[in-house]
Each structure stands twice: as C-alpha cells, then as structure tokens.
C-alpha cells in the first residue's frame, strides 16, 4: 500500500541526512582533537563543548535508527568528555589517545552502518573499554551500575483500582505554562474520574494576585491503571505542586462505564480528552525498554504509527 511505502522513503531520507550530518560532526571532532593539546586554556572549555555537542548529536540520531554500536561508542565518548568538562579528569596523552581512537572507530562504525555492514565488534569493545577505564578512575562506573539495577516499576495487572489524588498546584506550575485542565484531561483518559475543586482559599478579587494559585483539587480515579500510570500524569509538575496519590480499597465496581454522579469531570475536559489524542496511542511507560527491532526498523516503526 502507498501508505506503507511513504514512511520507508521518508526513513531513507532521514538516514541520508543523518550520514551527511555525521560526516560534518566527525570532521569537527577531528579538527578540535587536533588542536586541543596546544589550545589556550581559555579556549579549552568551548572546544570541549563543541566535541560534546558533536558526539551528542551523533548519538541522538544513531539512537533513532537503532545503530546500537554507534550509540555505545558515542555514549562512552560523551561520558569521557563530560568528565573533562567537569574537571574530574584532565586532558593528558592517555585521554587524548583514547578519544582519537574512539573518533576513528566511530567513523568506521558509521561507515559500516551506511554500507549496511555489521561493524567490527572487537575494535568497538576495545575502545569502549579504554574510555570506561578513564571513568572507572573516578569511581563513577560503579555508581552508574548501581542506578541501572533499580527494581522494575509496578505495572497494571488487569484489575480495577481506585486512587484518591490530592493536588495543590503552586504558582510555579502556571509559570512553567502547565495547566490543571490538561492534567484533568490526562487523568480522565485513564478511567472514571470524579473531580472536585476546593475554592475556599480564593480571596476577594481586590486581594487576589492573578499570578498566584488558590484552587486545590481532589480526584477519585477508578481504572485498570498502575500507581505509576497515575504518577506519570503529574511527571511534569511534580515539583510545582503538593501531591498525594493514594490507592484505596475498591468496595465494588458494578460496571466499568463512566459514572453519572454530579462530580464527574467537567464536560469541557471530558470532551477534550478523546478529540485531542492521536489514534493508536501507546501508553508505554516512559521507562519501558524500546522495542527490539532490526536496524532502522525502529525508526520506521515510530513513523508508521502516524
């Protein structure tokens, strides 16, 4: 079908753009690494920033196409450059040699990806080991390992659950352009929602600061959703509000349809929810692992969802 072909052509176009951008970035990296050893101390910080941005862009694009080895090398280079930028390690011949070797291997790996060949694992492994050795000197590798072993989040188990959510936004929430209506809309997409607003703190108009926050909210949500699903609704505003999410026992749920009680979410928010959401919406957790796909199928899967 024509609809299926269009993303493939589009993906190919993105791939070509990516490889062109890689060539420019690799050239920048080479130029900066050449002059870095003899650079004036005042120029070093910006040179390290340039190196970091170049590697960072390669990593970002490679991730979209599932070029995992390119991502691994650029991530290791990025870590090394970050240690240099923060002064945790110093520029010396060992560090420079590791970065120059990494740049060359990164270029080879990208060439292999471009030609559709499998990159040579042994070279990649060696260069990553060299870069990680610099990191382990600072004791950071062990710490990073610990954070990667965090337990998995709880997930929905197919049973209806009830949550009581108390949400008191601060002025900071509005200053960052967030809006409670959007959160109500998001919550209502998760199940049956009852909303009540506590307006007791709203002052007289003459005493009101238009940029302050006065309304507190309480929500009751019933749905087949995990605690994490509910928490994620507030992920952008968690430090701009007082938030309490409590899972309470659900005595009985006769039917999973929407309740008709008076305090059901306002008709405005309710009508916005389905209309504004894209079809085929995935509710995959933000921390869930990406789907395992072949090279550049991942990017295509992303775009086929359109």
């Amino acid at each position: 079908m024509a609809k299926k072909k269009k993303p493939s052509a589009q993906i190919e176009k993105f791939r070509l753009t990516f490889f062109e951008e890689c060539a420019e970035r690799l050239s920048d990296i080479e130029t900066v690494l050449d002059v870095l050893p003899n650079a004036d101390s005042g120029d070093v910080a910006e040179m390290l920033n340039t190196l970091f941005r170049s590697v960072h862009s390669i990593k970002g694009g490679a991730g979209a196409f599932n070029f995992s080895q390119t991502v691994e090398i650029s991530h290791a280079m990025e870590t090394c450059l970050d240690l240099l930028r923060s002064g945790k390690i110093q520029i010396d011949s060992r560090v420079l040699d590791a970065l120059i070797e990494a740049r060359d291997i990164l270029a080879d790996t990208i060439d292999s990806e471009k030609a559709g060949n499998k990159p040579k694992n042994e070279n990649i492994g060696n260069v990553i080991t060299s870069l990680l050795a610099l990191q382990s000197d600072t004791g950071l590798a062990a710490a990073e390992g610990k954070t990667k072993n965090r337990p998995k989040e709880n997930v929905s188990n197919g049973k209806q659950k009830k949550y009581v959510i108390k949400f008191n936004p601060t002025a900071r929430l509005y200053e960052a352009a967030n809006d409670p209506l959007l959160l109500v809309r998001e919550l209502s997409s998760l199940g049956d929602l009852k909303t009540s607003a506590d307006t007791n703190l709203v002052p007289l108009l003459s005493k009101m600061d238009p940029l302050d926050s006065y309304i507190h909210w309480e929500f009751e949500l019933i749905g087949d959703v995990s605690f994490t699903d509910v928490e994620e609704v507030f992920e952008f505003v968690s430090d701009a509000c007082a938030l309490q999410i409590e899972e309470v026992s659900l005595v009985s749920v006769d039917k999973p349809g929407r309740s008709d009680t008076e305090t059901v979410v306002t008709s405005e928010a309710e009508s916005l929810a389905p209309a504004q959401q894209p079809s085929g919406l995935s509710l995959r957790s933000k921390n869930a692992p990406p789907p395992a796909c072949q090279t550049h199928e991942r990017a295509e899967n992303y775009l086929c969802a359109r």
Partner: protein
Amino acid sequence: MKKRVLVVDDSVTMRDMVAYTMKSAGFTVFEADDGLNAIDFLDKQTVDLVITDINMPRLDGVGLIEKLRNSDINRFLPILCLTTETDPNLKNAAKSAGATGWLVKPFDPDVLVRAAHKVCL
C-alpha cells in the same frame, strides 16, 4: 485551527524527524537551529508550543527557556525539552528555568505527540 510548534535543535537529522512527526500529527511546524535563532523567530511570530534540544551552540535550551520566561509575550508559552541528556542536574536546571516538560531521545513519536497535547491547550 492548526497548532503551531517551533522545533529547536542543532541537529538537522533530529529537526527533520521531529518536524515530520509533528506535521503528521497536524501541527504547523517551524524550525530553528539554536536558541538565539529561536528567540529571533519568536520576536516576530507566535507559536503554541516550543520543542527544544538542550545542548546547542550560542544559546542552549536552558538559556532559551530562561529568556522566554523573562519575556512579556512568551512568558506562558509551553516548552518541551527533547534531549539525549539524562543528567538529573541538567533536567533540574531546565525545570528551574521553567520547562513545561521533558522527553528523552530517541523519541517515540506517539509519546512526543501525546506530550505536546498534554501541555498545549
């Protein structure tokens, strides 16, 4: 009426991919390759949403957010950060500057579009 979004990223690959995703979702898309060019654009035109990278030359994402939050016109403009950065310190810096939300690359188009709707009235 179509929502208008400004995509700010120094990587042309990433700008192309984000622009394609947002256009496919019905947004009108504008692009800038760093924070200063984004500011120049927003001095002349209005948008409903900014999606910005963090690591950029001249003016980075955090600097862009700070400038927009201190402007009269764009003070309440929703700003989503879309970055490969996972550093919590940088995330906090962006949040403190007034970022509306934060997404990590490589991005899932559905998640990006959903986040855009989440912060865009």
